Every structure is written in C-alpha cells, then in structure tokens.
C-alpha cells in the first residue's frame, strides 16, 4: 500500500480542492473568516473544531450549496458555482426522504441518473450490504434507529460514486461499536477508490485514525488554527502511542485535556 506523506500545503497529489481567502457571512455574523486551504487528490482531510465554528457551513460552500461571500473555491481547477454530483455531501442531519424506503432513498441518485431498474437494484443491494442495512430495504426512515439512518444517508451518497466525499459528522449518532466498524469501512472505501474525503467530526480519535491531516478550527468566526499532519502508516493502530500523543496535542490546542482534575475522561470516543 502506498503511503503518502502530506505536507501542510496539501500533500503530493495534484491539487484537487483549492480554497482561497474564503469568507462566509450571514447578515452581520461572519462565520468563516478568510480560510485558505489546499487538498490534494486522494487526500483524507479531517476537520475538528468547537460547535458553531462554521464546519458545516464550510462543507456546504465546498458542495456548492452556498455561494461564498468572498473568496474562491475551486475543485479540479474550476470554480464551484453550484451543486455537482461529483462532489457530494452527507449532511449532519441524515435528511432521508420520509416517504421513501431505505432502498428507495439509496436509489435516489441513480434514479436521477436515469439508470435502469436492474442496475439500480444491483447497485443498491451492494451498497446496503456495505453499510449493513441489507436486512432493512423496505423500512421507512422513521422505523430506523439514528445510526441506521446515518448509514442509509452515507449509502445514498456513495451510490453516485462522487470523487470528492464531504462528510458532516456522519457517525455522530452511532454507538461506539458501529462507529468503529464504519470507520474501518470508510477507510476501506477511501483506500480502494482514491476518493478525496473531507470529514467533519467531533471525535478527535476518529480524525486521527482516518485522516492524512487534521485541521483544527477556532471558535466563530472560524479560522484555521492549526494543521496536524498524521503520517502514521495505515492501517493504524487505534491504541498506538503516536496517535495518543497527537490526541493530547489536538485536545491541548482545543483547550481541553484528556485528564481534568482527578476525573479521568474515558479514552475511547472522547468528544468535544
């Protein structure tokens, strides 16, 4: 397996995403303040930061759903000026269509592509197996657990096979076990497909386990506070001393310590 070492400027692959002095305001509130960022093709980037610092907003801008107030966003050298199925986003809220079954939800993008019934059936069956929902194709979203909904939402976006995958806390509502399984699954998809992935997460361990670089954002207005390269070879050992050290660093930058007074905060799934 080829292991790339990414520099702070975006790694060794060709530039996939270039963000230049991006500013995003809503009325008087500046949510994102002059963020510049380069992401290499095939890079896995994780973003952590306090709640409300503009992480979701940044992903929405990258996905072309929101026009930036100032600055530029380019993907593959072209300005982003609208949604594009090549760069898809899994929303923080699962956003499944309540009137569609799991199967039909996952099929949505393929229907939009006007694929044949047989193609859709095959691809959806494959994807449901991938995210562990093959037992529930006929269920409606309100019959699913929170984690199952998120997995369905992930499958829905994977169906159209985007080359940039924007993930907004996709595993937020999952239990610890499922979360680890899906992290492994996501890593497998990432390593096999060469997709460029940007993952927003509150879980520092998740970021360090998966990403080539971890971006730490400041409180609102969101700026990039620090970029932490993770050079450890994949597959990584979740319990490695190196990752534990990096976690300490990240939490320190965020103003949190894994040990607070005498109370030992559980190591696994430490969330901010």
């Amino acid at each position, binding site marked *: 397996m080829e292991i790339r070492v990414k520099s702070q400027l975006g790694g060794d692959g060709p530039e996939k995403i270039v963000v230049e002095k991006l500013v995003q305001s809503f009325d008087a509130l500046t949510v994102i303040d002059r963020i510049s960022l380069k992401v290499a093709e095939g890079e896995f980037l994780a973003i952590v930061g306090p709640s409300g610092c503009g992480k979701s907003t940044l992903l929405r801008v990258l*996905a072309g*759903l929101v026009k930036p107030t100032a600055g530029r966003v380019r993907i593959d050298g072209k300005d982003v000026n*609208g*949604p*594009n*199925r090549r760069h*898809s*986003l899994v*929303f923080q*809220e699962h*956003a499944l*269509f*309540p*009137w*569609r*079954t799991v199967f039909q939800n996952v099929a*949505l*993008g393929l*229907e*939009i*592509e006007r694929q044949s019934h047989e193609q859709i059936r095959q691809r959806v069956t494959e994807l449901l197996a991938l995210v562990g929902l*093959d*037992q*529930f*194709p*006929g*269920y*409606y979203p309100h*019959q699913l657990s929170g984690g199952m909904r998120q997995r369905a939402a992930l499958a*829905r*976006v994977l169906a*159209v096979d985007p080359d940039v995958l924007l993930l907004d806390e996709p595993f937020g509502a999952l239990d610890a076990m499922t979360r680890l399984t899906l992290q492994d699954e996501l890593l497998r998809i990432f390593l096999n497909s060469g997709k460029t992935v940007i993952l927003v997460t509150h879980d520092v361990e998740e970021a360090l386990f998966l990403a080539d670089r971890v971006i730490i954002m400041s409180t609102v207005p969101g700026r990039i506070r620090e970029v932490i390269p993770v050079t450890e070879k994949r597959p990584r050992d979740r319990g490695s001393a190196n990752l534990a050290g990096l976690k300490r660093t990240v939490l320190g930058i965020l103003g949190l310590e894994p040990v607070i007074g005498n109370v030992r905060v559980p190591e696994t799934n430490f969330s901010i």
Partner: protein
Amino acid sequence: MAERTGTAEAVERPESLSAWQLRFARVFPYAIAFLAIVAGWQVAALIFPSYLIPSPGSVVRRLGGELAREAFLITVGRSFFRLSIGFTLASFLGLMVGLASGVWPFFRRFTRALVSILQSVPPIAWVPLFIILLGFGDYPIILVIIIAAFFPMAVAVMNGVEQVEKLHVDVARLLGADNKQLIAKVYAPEVIPSIVTGAQVGFGNAWRSLIAAEMVGGVNIGLGWFINFAGEIADMTGVLTGIVVIGLFSAVLDGYVLERLKRRLLKWKYV
C-alpha cells in the same frame, strides 16, 4: 440466503399482523356513532308524534320508495353534477393559486390577505348576489361551491409548498437533480399530503354549501331543494329522508373514498 427470506417476512409482518386491527379500529368508531344517532332518533320518535318526528324505520321505507322513483334519482344526480363541477374547478384553481403562492412570496402575501378578508364570509351569503348576476339555475350554486372549496385547497397547498424541507431539496440537487426532477422527486411528494388535506376540507365545505345553496337558491331540483320543499308541505319523512341521503353520501365519499385515497398516497405514514 435463508436469512434473507426470514427478513423479508420480518419486514412484512408488522403490516399484516395489525391489518385487521387497523381496519377494526377504523370502522368501529363509525359503527358506534351510527348506532348512537339511530338510537337518539328512535327515542325522539317515541316521544314526539310521528307527523313531527317519523321513526327511522318509516324513513328507511320511504327512502326505498324514493330510490325507485326516477324524479328522486334525477334530483340527487343534479346535486352531484353541481358538486363535481364546482369541486373540481375549485380544487384545480386552489391548487394553482396555492402553488403560485408557495413559490412567490408576493403572491403569498396577496393570497393571505384575500383569504383573511373573504374567509369570514359564509359562502352561502353570496347566493343573492350571484342569483342577480347569473339568474336562477346551476351557475350561482356552482359558484358558491367553488368559493367554498377554493380557499381550503389554496391555503393547504400554499402552506405545503412553504414547508417543503429545504434540506431535501439540497440533497436532490447534490445528487444532480434538474428542475423537473426536483419537482417530481421532492416537491410533489412533499406537497401531496397538503393537497389531500385541502381536498378533504374543501370537499366538506363544498358539500355543505351545495345543500344550503340549493335550499335558498330558488332552484326546483336538487337534494337541498328536496328537503326544503318537503319542509314546506310539512312532509317530515321527506325532510329526514333527504338528511339521511346527505349523511350517507358524505360519509361514504369523505370517510371512505377520500380517506382511502389519502392512505394510498401517504402509505409511508401509516406503516
């Protein structure tokens, strides 16, 4: 593979298990209500002399006789003719105005203002004006039905379009949907429940206004006229026969036809 068949069953079982329970739960209240009405009526018939309140039995016999009479069938048919034209036109207009108001904020404010002014007027109050404008006959009655059914539809659809989940639109756009696909795959499914609600409320309004308009509208055919005329000649059995026909038809149309349509369109909500 054995597991797969097992799960297919597991998916269907919750539906089939409760199917008869659901049906029972739906029909039972209707049956109770029906019995309560008949019982109350029977008691009243025992207290009052039969020329004031005829018994349910005599009304049922009269109904049998009327249903065999061509003139009665024609009169009922005419009411339905007026209702279907008025209700269809009103639903269509309401749908169009509702959609336009949902999409364009200016139009929405206009419709809101229009509704708040005109909704306070009972549709039946327009009858004298329409008779002078259009003369006696079907037109003023149909116009009253249109007014009665238009507003519920327009308001329901307008609110429905306004409440379309922005996130769902974004999801479809991200997956590459063009405008036509957005309408087919997001807007239509999200607005259909509101259309059904609008139709149901509008239908109730239209039906009541139809009977009222036929009673005061100076026509000499139609269910409303039938009741009015029977009243004028002190034919209480006739009056109650007309009322029974109205109750039965609207129960069947609203409680059965429209309800079934709703359940079909909103299948996912009832799983």
